[in-house]
């Protein structure tokens, strides 16, 4: 008998999504094994975010079905947390209250959840900022609060939509390291959308490549067998990393060029 953990975290079965006559995603099927870190890459505007929103249950597929740990997804995906590209912190709540928000919605008692939130404030290195409001924080700090907000509810599945694209290079590297540490220290499955192929390879166990839009399909899946834990700087000079990069980039390039050809004709 298969145990709970052996079920794939996400299964997409022939998922399509159309917005009016525009077909964003056409007939995509895949599986994300539990506790894996999977990145979705593809040319810009190819429907990566749509795919992620479908997994989150924020967008429903026009056709096909999503299964989460073996159960068909109806409505919001209760097993998942979502880290958005833009800031999604509640501006009128302090850092602590924002981190606590998910627990508070789940009816945890105040003392318990405050204690947990304090622990997370320390964990993300924002000691002394607990009573600050989001506008008083830098972009990187806000992102860390968002990460804590999502992780405190101990989700089985974490969805991330280009979470670091608005950050500067240094902050971004630190965030990537934090995500690496978090994902290796817990059992969450991670689906990470990015347009940055280096980031995708460095962080993931597997990379999914989507084709150009419209009618986006899944054109490739690449296993990343680099050993973990990884050093995000050193790994980029690793030969195997570079081979993988070359290989995926060749396929990604084709899609990007198709996109160019379409827009220029």
């Amino acid at each position: 008998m298969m145990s709970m953990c052996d079920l794939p975290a996400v299964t997409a079965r022939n998922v399509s999504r159309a917005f009016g006559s525009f077909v964003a995603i056409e007939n995509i099927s895949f599986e994300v094994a539990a506790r894996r870190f999977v990145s979705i890459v593809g040319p810009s505007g190819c429907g990566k975010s749509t795919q992620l929103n479908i997994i989150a249950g924020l967008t429903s597929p026009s056709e096909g079905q999503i299964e989460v740990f073996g159960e068909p997804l109806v409505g919001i995906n209760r097993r998942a947390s979502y880290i958005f590209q833009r800031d999604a912190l509640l501006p009128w709540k302090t850092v602590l209250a924002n981190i606590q928000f998910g627990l508070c919605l789940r009816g945890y008692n105040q003392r318990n959840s405050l204690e947990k939130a304090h622990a997370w404030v320390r964990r993300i290195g924002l000691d002394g900022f607990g009573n600050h409001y989001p506008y008083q924080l830098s972009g990187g700090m806000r992102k860390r609060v968002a990460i804590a907000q999502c992780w405190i509810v101990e989700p089985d599945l974490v969805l991330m939509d280009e979470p670091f694209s608005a950050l500067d290079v240094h902050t971004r590297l630190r965030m990537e390291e934090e995500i690496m540490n978090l994902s290796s220290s817990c059992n969450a499955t991670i689906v990470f959308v990015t347009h940055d192929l280096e980031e995708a390879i460095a962080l993931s166990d597997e990379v999914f490549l989507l084709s150009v839009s419209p009618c986006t399909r899944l054109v490739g899946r690449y296993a990343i067998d680099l050993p973990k834990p990884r050093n995000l700087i050193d790994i980029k000079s690793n030969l195997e990393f570079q081979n993988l990069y070359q290989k995926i980039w060749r396929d990604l390039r084709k899609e990007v060029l198709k996109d160019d050809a379409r827009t220029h004709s």
Partner: protein
Amino acid sequence: MMRGHILRKSRILILQLFLASAMVGIWEYCSASKIVDPFFFSRPSEIVLRVGHWVATGFVWSHLLTTLLETILSFLIGSCLGAVLGFALGTLPNAAALLDPYIRVGNALPRVVLSPIFLLWFGLGIWSKVALGVTVVFFIVFFNTYRGVREVDPLLIDNARMLGASGRQLARHVLVRSALTWIFSSLHISIGMAIVAVVVGEYLGASKGIGYLVAQAEGVFDTTGMFAGMTVLAFVVLLIGAIVGRVERRLLHWKPLHDSLAPRPLPPGKNKSHGPPIVVENSFRSPNGDQPPHSQVRTNSIYRNY
């Protein structure tokens, strides 16, 4: 940097005081030397004496209290009605579409024309002025609440839902808070407009109040009395403005300051923020809270899936 800032502020204050005394001085000189007719323009010195007399004899207090009471009552009643209806229509798009033309007609109607009918219905006492004030405050608060609910960032809603918010929790933690932001930042306008409506109401028919004083003075061609009434009113409005500003700052302390003169104080957390996602209100916008609800009835992701 801080010292330079204070210096700049005090220099501006000195210039402002200088400007005021220059204007008053010119007025005084022109009236005294009959360049303008004191019968029509009065004299600042006489106005000051009159106000002093009013205050010293205690004559003005009961009128002032009446005006303030009317203002506060119309503000409270109007805000409650506006907030409740605004929230209801903000969350019920169909009801909003149904009531849209009526609300627009109601808002387009110049409120002054309601004054005679309110006088008939509620008499010369405070309630006819309160009613007039309510019709003004109601629409301001209504439109702000409505917009607060409709224009909340869909991302905040998605995030709250992903974190497990039910429909009711979403309303409480996100929609109401967003609406309150808009209501709080329209406090200045709604209280200011309440005073205007109340004073106009008093002017048109009353037995007490600052507007009544001005009307009385007008009846006997007492320009000094009229200007004295205006002076008292101006000071009261300034005072209320300062108080409301403080209250607003307290209620919206999670928002960055946007003062045209003051550079933004650096938050203890160093670094620049990318600015708040919240729409910053312009205090010079039209008093009736912008657009009719009609233009905002659009499908928003708030409503999908539930």
